């Protein structure tokens, strides 16, 4: 019987299958960060359990770390306790950790691929919903809760039920100035935030194949915003080339054998998908979100929706609630939305290509005088690379702040946050109420669009600044 890529990875990781469909799945790679792990380690200690495979686990502090000068450590007491706790736990249980002073430190979903820890055909988990990012490598990668983190630490397995197969095909070529961020925003707008519930999404089609490794990560990253458990893309030569020679990638004979296995990782012809959606790349335009859910998308040429046009009472209410929170009027043009802040970073768009894309727009330009803008590279290595290319200078000359790596204003757990009613063009992934600070208003955009907004001082069309 022809199988999907998800079926294949699933079958290859089955440790046990109960009659009711509950399965025990082997976990090849486990990423750990400071926020969702302390209670898991405590659980292990309380029941006298060990970490079954410390070598299959990699830890990093990212959510709480300051993005400004770190020489004096973390000033927020609670953040410090959490980061210190992670350090102590990793030491006690023998887990490799990239500490705050390590240049390999960064956002957990950025360092995994960078180190070659993320590999095709593996099952990868992390106590973090954006684990879906790693699906770009053709791995089955998904977020888990803290109890499950404890379960994986203790058993290197996870209790799971098989999800449905959902394929999204994107064919064609993207218009100038349109990026993979616009593609995924468009997809979420189309399927809705619960559209993928109970499914694993495979992204396919010639547009997806034409994307770079990093662009693929942006798409898989936001799969969770479409409600799916995981998103993945069949690995190809681009992926193998990316991984070759990375510190934790297989070496020598292992590399050859791994390649042989990886090359077969694709959905068979005629494999059955429970659900399919088709998109034409040519029809995708630069997108923004206007509301408080990632499905609230419009094109940059678009207008804010009018609740009066909505017949369904629940939908009308939620539209009104979102407009009210966002401080927007119905029918307003997207380009008339004035912004206060710009944030470029996060596991969605904090990689080198994202910074290049934004820098290309910002080169020799100044940001609007009322805008406060910052770039937070996704990792120390991204930062280093960007500095080698001189991108930091372009950002700083245009008026951006150039920060240390971490999650930063993506969720505002550290000092970087919006004030009430402040409005931000952000390259992150969630525009929920209060996500970037209480009362803060978030518009999700691509890095190029964030740069354009910084220059114009309002949401604007990146194509205007394209040479």
């Amino acid at each position, binding site marked *: 019987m022809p199988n999907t890529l998800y079926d294949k990875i699933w079958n290859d990781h089955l440790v046990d299958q109960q009659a009711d469909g509950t399965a025990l799945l082997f976990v090849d790679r486990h990423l750990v960060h400071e*926020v969702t792990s*302390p209670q898991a380690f405590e659980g292990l200690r309380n*029941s006298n359990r060990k970490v079954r495979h410390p070598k*299959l686990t990699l830890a990093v502090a990212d959510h*709480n770390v300051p993005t400004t000068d770190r020489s004096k450590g973390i000033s927020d007491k609670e953040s410090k306790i*959490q980061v210190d706790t992670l350090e102590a736990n990793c030491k006690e249980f023998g887990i490799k950790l990239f500490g705050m002073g390590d240049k390999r430190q960064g956002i957990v979903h950025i360092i995994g691929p960078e180190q070659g820890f993320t590999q095709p055909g593996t099952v990868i988990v992390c106590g973090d919903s954006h684990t879906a990012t790693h699906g770009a490598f053709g791995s089955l990668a998904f977020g888990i809760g803290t109890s499950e983190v404890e379960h994986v630490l203790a058993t290197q397995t996870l209790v799971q039920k098989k999800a449905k197969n959902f394929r999204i095909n994107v064919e064609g070529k993207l218009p100038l100035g349109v990026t993979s961020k616009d593609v995924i925003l468009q997809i979420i707008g189309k399927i809705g935030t*619960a559209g993928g519930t109970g499914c694993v999404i495979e992204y396919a089609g010639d547009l997806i194949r034409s994307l770079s490794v990093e662009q693929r990560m942006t798409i898989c990253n936001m799969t969770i915003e479409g409600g799916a458990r995981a998103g993945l893309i069949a690995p190809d030569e681009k992926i193998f080339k990316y991984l070759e020679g990375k510190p934790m990638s297989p070496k020598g004979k292992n590399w050859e*054998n791994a390649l042989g296995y990886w090359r077969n990782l694709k959905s068979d012809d005629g494999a059955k998908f429970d659900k399919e959606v088709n998109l034409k790349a040519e029809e995708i335009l630069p997108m923004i979100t206007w509301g408080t859910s990632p499905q609230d998308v419009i094109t940059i040429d678009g207008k804010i929706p009018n609740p009066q046009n909505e017949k369904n009472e629940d939908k009308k209410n939620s539209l009104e609630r979102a407009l009210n929170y966002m401080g927007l009027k119905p029918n307003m043009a997207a380009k008339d939305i004035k912004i206060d802040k710009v944030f470029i970073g996060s596991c969605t768009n904090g990689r080198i290509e994202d910074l290049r894309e934004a820098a290309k727009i910002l080169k020799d330009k100044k940001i609007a005088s009322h805008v406060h803008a910052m770039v937070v590279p996704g990792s120390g290595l991204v930062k280093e690379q960007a500095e080698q290319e001189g991108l930091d200078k372009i950002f700083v000359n245009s008026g951006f702040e150039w920060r240390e790596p971490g999650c930063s204003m993506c969720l505002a757990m550290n000092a970087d946050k919006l004030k009430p009613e402040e409005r931000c063009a952000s390259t992150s992934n969630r525009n929920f109420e209060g996500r970037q600070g209480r009362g803060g208003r978030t518009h999700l955009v691509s890095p190029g669009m964030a740069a354009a907004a910084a220059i114009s001082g309002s949401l604007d069309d990146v194509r205007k600044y394209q040479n």
Partner: protein
Amino acid sequence: MQKFSTLKSIPAYLPIVNIDTDMIIPKQFLKTIKRTGLGKNLFFEMRYDDKGKEINEFVLNKTPFNKSKILIAGKNFGCGSSREHAPWALLDFGITCVISSSFADIFHNNCFKNGILPIILNDDKIKELSEYANRKEEIFVDLNEEKVIYGNNEVRFKVDPFKKQCLLEGLDDIALSLNKSKKIESFEKDLKSQKPWIFND
């Protein structure tokens, strides 16, 4: 984990769709290294004003709903971040059953690990049950029978049999999986010979 079998309570009704885990427990409370004590911060931004004072109109601030053990909410409950702090906060507040027409996957899973029963019912039934919240009348949840009883009516729901058993008996997932350690070992042995690169040795 605490067992769950039956539950009787006046339900609280929160008619909002897409309630995300940031709303259930905002990030400033994720800095804890404990599982307990989060109940007072449940739905923090809806529950307290800028000065930290309780907002009287918010349902969980009103009697008798401040004692509700059952929460009824709009669809796609628990979407967003995977934080298990969301069910911990609900549990610490005293809510051990959430009823909605749909749940986000990770949250749904996290509930079962913490002795919380998430029940999926269609929108019509949610409407009927919400009347009980409005009238401040109790409803009754029976996990074993997989039904909710309200007034002279009842509605059946479905739970995964394995998860049901874990809830009913308060079973620890990890202990159950460790009972299968023979199988894990043999899987690992095969893996080492077939895909040695996984272990990096």
